[in-house]
């Protein structure tokens, strides 16, 4: 594999074929001007990259637990602050957290909030696959309305998840951080630009990256980029930035594709195409439309 591409995260990890996060990790870390130290929450990325006696990490890495990756990097960052002052560590190091949506939206939310509020100089990256995929596809607060998971299965009295996704970008923005952006593995040049900007910004910064899961969204391994692309083309996953509180949409089209084009590619939404679930599909389309409009309104504020 390309040496430059794998300088931080090697080939030979055990992530699924067709998984998005190796690309996300390499693309983001490739934009760092300085050496990086990683704190990783428990999850797919962690278990597939650090199976003893092997490690895919060619840069310093720590995994502590599920909910504390942000608190862990807080300690590393402050240790660096004092040890570099004492001449015991390199002056320039970047600190990056990787967590899935479970460790970001749910169990690690407090730890993330604390670290953002304290203003540590670090980049938090959530690779968002909309559920607890490492434990076999349970719902998280990032699971979309209508999606079937193992804990929100479809059935005679169920159409999948009843609740809307939590709006993590808004939560993060409420911490007055200088830069937060939503990106997508299918748009690498956009992701690169955002990673570069994140690394150039002092203080805490946040990237939310769309990361399809072949196993639990149920699609062929060859399709993750196509499906990710459809998520943005249907306005299900807009690409945007919040810089000093100002919203900017990075990709838009006059005529977004119909949401069905995204949904029909995945087994987790298969049930929405039955006659019985027509109202659910209609509601889902309404949610996406409303959220897009709300985002557009914010860019005009």
């Amino acid at each position: 594999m390309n040496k430059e591409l794998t300088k931080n995260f090697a080939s030979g990890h055990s992530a699924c074929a067709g998984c998005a996060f190796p690309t996300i990790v390499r693309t983001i870390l490739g934009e760092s001007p300085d050496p990086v130290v990683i704190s990783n929450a428990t999850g797919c990325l962690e278990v597939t990259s650090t199976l003893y006696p092997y490690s895919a990490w060619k840069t310093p890495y720590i995994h502590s637990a599920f909910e504390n990756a942000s608190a862990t990097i807080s300690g590393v960052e402050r240790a660096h602050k004092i040890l570099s002052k004492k001449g015991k560590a390199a002056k320039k190091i970047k600190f990056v957290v990787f967590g899935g949506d479970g460790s970001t939206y749910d169990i690690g939310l407090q730890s993330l909030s604390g670290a953002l509020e304290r203003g540590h100089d670090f980049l938090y990256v959530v690779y968002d696959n909309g559920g607890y995929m490492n434990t076999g596809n349970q719902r998280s607060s990032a699971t979309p309305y209508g999606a079937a998971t193992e804990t929100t299965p479809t059935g005679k009295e169920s159409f999948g998840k009843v609740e809307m996704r939590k709006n993590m970008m808004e939560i993060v923005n409420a911490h007055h951080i200088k830069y937060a952006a939503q990106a997508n593995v299918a748009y690498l040049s956009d992701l690169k630009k955002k990673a570069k900007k994140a690394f150039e910004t002092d203080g805490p910064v946040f990237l939310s990256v769309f990361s399809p899961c072949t196993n639990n969204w149920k699609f062929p391994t060859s399709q993750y980029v196509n499906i990710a692309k459809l998520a943005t083309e249907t306005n299900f996953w807009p690409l945007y930035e919040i810089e000093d509180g100002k919203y900017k949409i990075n990709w838009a089209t006059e005529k977004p594709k119909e949401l069905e084009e995204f949904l029909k590619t995945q087994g987790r939404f298969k049930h929405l195409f039955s006659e019985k679930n027509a109202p659910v599909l209609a509601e889902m389309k309404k949610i996406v439309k409303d959220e897009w409009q709300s985002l557009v309104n914010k860019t005009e504020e």
Partner: protein
Amino acid sequence: MCSCLPSQSDYNEEKLIIRFETTRLDSRRPLVEARQANVIRIYENILNNSNKKRIALSGGAAAAEALKQLEPDVMAVYPITPQTTIIETFAKFKADGEVATEVIEVESEHSAISACVGSSAAGARTVTATSSQGLALMNEILYIASGMRLPILMIVSSRALSAPLNIHGDHSDVMGARDTGWIQIFSENAQEIYDNTIIGMKLAEKVRFPVMAIMDGFNTSHCVENLEILPIEKVREFVGEFVPEQSLLDIENPVTFGPVALQNSYFEFKVNQEEAMDDVANEYLKIAKEFEKLTGRKKDIFEAYQIEDAEQVIILAGSTAGTAKDVVDNMRGQGKKVGLIKINLFRPFPRKEIIEALKNVQSIAVMERAISSGTYPPFYQDIMTGLFQFGEKKNMQSIIYSLGGCDIFAKDIEQIFNDLIANKISNEIKYIGI
């Protein structure tokens, strides 16, 4: 001050004095009356020897003083009563520019210990402090800190656990953490928590295990006493510089901390960790001897008080030892052969040494400030295991006392000795003070 201090109005003058009588720690030292529980430096008196300085501090402030002297790189803390005396005192040191330490005021104890894991893995000298619910909330990460062999020092002002809520002292919190792979050292008074903070830091960095230096919440953390402190340079020389074997900040030599270890390696990791724990008592003793040379204060894995010809012995840990020593002295005056073993190092447990010390003893009462629900409390279990293992048959009474800060009086301890003398010993756990 925080609202959780024992309010003066809760005690009439007479009771207040009794309270301090019962919690006083060394009868041979004048007790300075505690009006405010935070740092009150009543006097500073440089003795003829420049190695020592006499000062009056609460236990919490004494721990903070020791922390200032060993100057950690990072301290991550979250406030909880009765730990606040430590972190408030330290915060003032920081505000006055007396320490360079990076203090991280995290949003929970879980994050406090998590930040410590990050900081220690990054090669920084790292400390924290907590109590009670805070220690319980840290529990998950305590195992991670010891499993990664990170030399974090934690000062604990030990306190009861909810429910019902109680902010006062007992050992429930630290006993709940006794199997987490941390070294645990108990302290009797302000002097000892000062000493154990310094010893604990050096020990942690020597053996690469995290250490809890424990004092009794309120009884020690909030009572002002006289103690001797060392000059700062002596402490720094004693503790030395922390040189980590591996660090997250060593970019040239990248290390993966906290990998996945499956059936083929996990067990081996844990056994290796336990084998390393077996050496800790020896290292503790070496450091204790060095410390003794520096200060003249004898340190051991436990303190044997009037034990040589003792027939009846009480075993306990923490601040009650002061009162118990008074009782031993009084009863010795009456010709009764009683003695005391005060446990200092509890994890790893010095089973062999304690059983050796008990060889000629007829009967024992083990006094504890914790319940191990559904069975006997921790000290009793460990000592009974030791007695059986070494073929020593002794009559031993299990006693639980002072949960949630409930008072214990000299007369209670005297009664316990008298019961031992009269062979009133049963397999039932005795609860004193209810």
